[in-house]
């Protein structure tokens, strides 16, 4: 086996990144923001309380601030920057957030969108209570969640008519 084959790799938004020893020891949030310069993933608390740092790890919503890079080697990471279609068209969840007025300060929005995506993968037609449960680990201080729930409901109808 050559040395290259054993180099640990992380796939972020479809691009493979070889990881250095130092990068393996970083938390995923810092790696995404500081090394890859993907600043759409936000740091709201650093203690796993707010969900602003939510990313998709193999399509499941996870908090990147509590995730070590070494623990996700070989996995597929999706951040908000990898969420639009390649032609720039917004994902139906993103469009629904705009149309429902679900965005205010926007700091929780990327994490909220990714949690909603993860929810809709598991449950295509969640009722409003199930939507609240699906986004319950993502804090928002601006919206009172009402229009976010509206957005996810709307996205579910667009994606799975």
């Amino acid at each position, binding site marked *: 086996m050559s040395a290259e084959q054993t180099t640990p790799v992380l796939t972020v938004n479809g691009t493979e990144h070889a990881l250095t020893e130092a990068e393996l020891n970083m938390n995923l949030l810092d790696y995404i923001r500081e090394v890859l310069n993907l600043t759409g993933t936000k740091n*709201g608390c650093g203690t796993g309380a707010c969900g602003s740092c939510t990313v998709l790890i193999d399509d499941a919503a996870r908090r990147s601030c509590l995730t070590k890079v070494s623990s996700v080697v070989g996995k597929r990471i999706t951040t908000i920057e990898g969420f639009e279609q390649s032609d720039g068209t*917004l994902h139906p969840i993103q469009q629904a957030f705009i*149309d429902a*007025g679900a*965005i*205010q300060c926007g700091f929780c*929005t990327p994490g909220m969108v990714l949690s909603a995506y993860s929810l809709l993968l598991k449950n295509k037609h969640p009722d409003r209570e199930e939507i609240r449960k699906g986004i319950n680990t993502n804090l928002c201080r601006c919206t009172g969640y009402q229009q*976010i729930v509206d957005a996810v409901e709307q996205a579910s109808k667009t994606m799975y008519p």
Partner: protein
Amino acid sequence: MKIPSGKVFRNDAYAKVTGKAKYSDDLKFFNMAHAVPVYSDYIHAENLQVDTGAAEKSAGVLKVITAADVPGSVRFGQIEQDYCMFADKKIMYAGDVVALVVAEQRSQALSAADKVVVSADPLPVVSDPEAALSPESPVVREIKNSNLMNHHKMRRGDALQELKTCDIVLQEEFSTQFIEHAYMEPESAVCVPRQDGVMEVYGSMQHPFSTRRFVGALLGEPLSHIEVYQPPTGGGFGGKDDTAAIVCARAALAARLLNRPVKLTYTREWSIRESYKRHPYRLNYKVGIEKSGRVKAVQVRMISDGGPYLSVSPWVNWRSTAQCFGPYTVDNVHADVLCAATNNPVTGAMRGFGAPQVNFAVEQISDIAAERLGISPLEYRRINMVKQDSETVTGQVLDTHTVSMEQVMDRVADEIGYEEKLRKCSRGTSEGDELYGVGLSISYRGSSLGAEGMDFCSSVINCQFDGSILLETGIHENGQGSESVMLLLLAEQLGVRLDRIKYKRSSTSNVPDGGTTVATRGTIMGGGAVTAAARKLKQLMADNLNDILQCRPEEVRFEDDHVLGPDSDSKITWDEAMQHLFLKRVYPYAFGSFQAPDVSWDEETGQGDAYFTYVYSCQAVELTVNKSNGKIKMQNIVAAHDIGRAVNRAMVLGQMYGGITQGVGMALSEDLGIEDGRFPHLDLNHYKIPKARELPEITGIIVENPDPQSPSKAKGIGEPALELIAPAIANALYNATGIRYRDMPLKVNPEDLNLK
């Protein structure tokens, strides 16, 4: 162009939903260094010594800054210059910063910060506001000889005498807690020294102009040498003024001393530790009522905790004074509102600004009074509330706008079915596991700053040769959608397509200081300025295009992206209009300003025209209480607010939902648990803001009685939304359990339920 109703418009939605929006911490500059703050373990101490030797030798460290390095003034403040931006000889509270470590890498700065050695002689901690006001208490602020920060009064009629003659006299005491703003984005600043000597400041803040003053004070430089930009800001809620400005000032000092860009981004821990909070209040009311249900006299004493620095405490307390008995008319009022200096966290502006605390008391008193009188809570409110041309407790006659208090209350009562549901309340007994209650509260809120401040704002419209338009105002975007409102208003005024107009990146070196975007003044003041500038622009255009349109200037109209004469035959497109103007050497440019109508205040009597207009609000809630564990579950919320006119309907509703949710957090779950000036926890795991599942569906009702004194006819919604759900919840809790809860956060002890 008419604003399409039901359509959501936000100029920043695309950037935010795609993660492209660059907040302060998302910015990077070449050769940028990183700063971190250093705190001490003291709460109150003197003879402060900061040993930076070991930290300075730490890897990557460029400089460790203390009060001794400050070229300007280490102290500053919005009212009094007492706020220490670096601890200077004394520690005043847990959040005082003793040093700033600047290093090549943030990780290097963090590890060096641990090596700063702080020593001081501890002083007794003053933590009880009531005790702080006794003559025996140690004095917290050495620039004063007592802990009394301010004392506002109202002396109307003779309340003390009249209380002796009333049929019913209620005596009630209430308390409220410290509240954390908990904006999702912690404070952050990036400062870049420019080659022309100007310091560029990019920061998460609510008031770029105030930030500029703080930066100027610390650096000892004139305002023209500092240019403050506001990138997208991740929430403010009144909380990103002093602390956020000081974070910018410290980063600017580091950038100035090192002559390179410096970033200072706060962790949540630092943010909670250092940032100012909502004032806790203790409120004592004596309310005299006649058998008819009419309130005859009110005596009230409020004590608020001001922390160690003044911040805007006098203004917060002033609003509590002006609105000291809610939206009710009373001929005799004797009010004293005091603020005590302590070594607890700094307290300052927070959405609601001295009103939520008062409403928590007053609106529970309304229900208590109604029960004593044996009348419906709605009836009691109807008897006493302000009506058209009523005189408020400050002696202001409400004759300049539609007083819709009753209309708003009736809308909510009808929507939720209040009277019918009131009869179904458990009052402590039910057959199942749950107790059920409904509760309601009403408020009025003076719009904008009122007699507490200078209230004016400006706007610049700069039309381009190609038909595109640049807009700027002195109001700033904190996430509430203020830029979108301004864009909508301008499109409407000029009759042009919305996509013609671009909102300029805000800079303190462009528009004049428009004051801070607080006090529910964004839409009313910024909207007033946009409307004023648009009128000037239209006048200019009419005066210079009427010859082409073959009509008199006053006949020129602006519709459907065209400039028209009196009949539709004579019209030119907006693009053509711009070309004509430039060919005539006329700049289609206008500066407009709006000054709030006159207000007045007498400090001794607490009488005057406190605010130029008021927002009328009512909120109601249904909830259940689990008998075995005391858990409170919100089941339904209905809210109505008369905001004059909704410019961006979906965003108005968003403000309602969000404000209500913050009020729910204050009522039920938010508690910093501060004891003797110390925080037991500094994270959002323990400080519990409401989550999606803890909220019910909320119905928002927008009531629109256009306000003649507002050029855009709109008032505002930011703060009214938050200020009255807590007493509605307390009233519902009483109706569910039969127990009156007077201290926030409201907690039901199941043992108390079993005693019933």
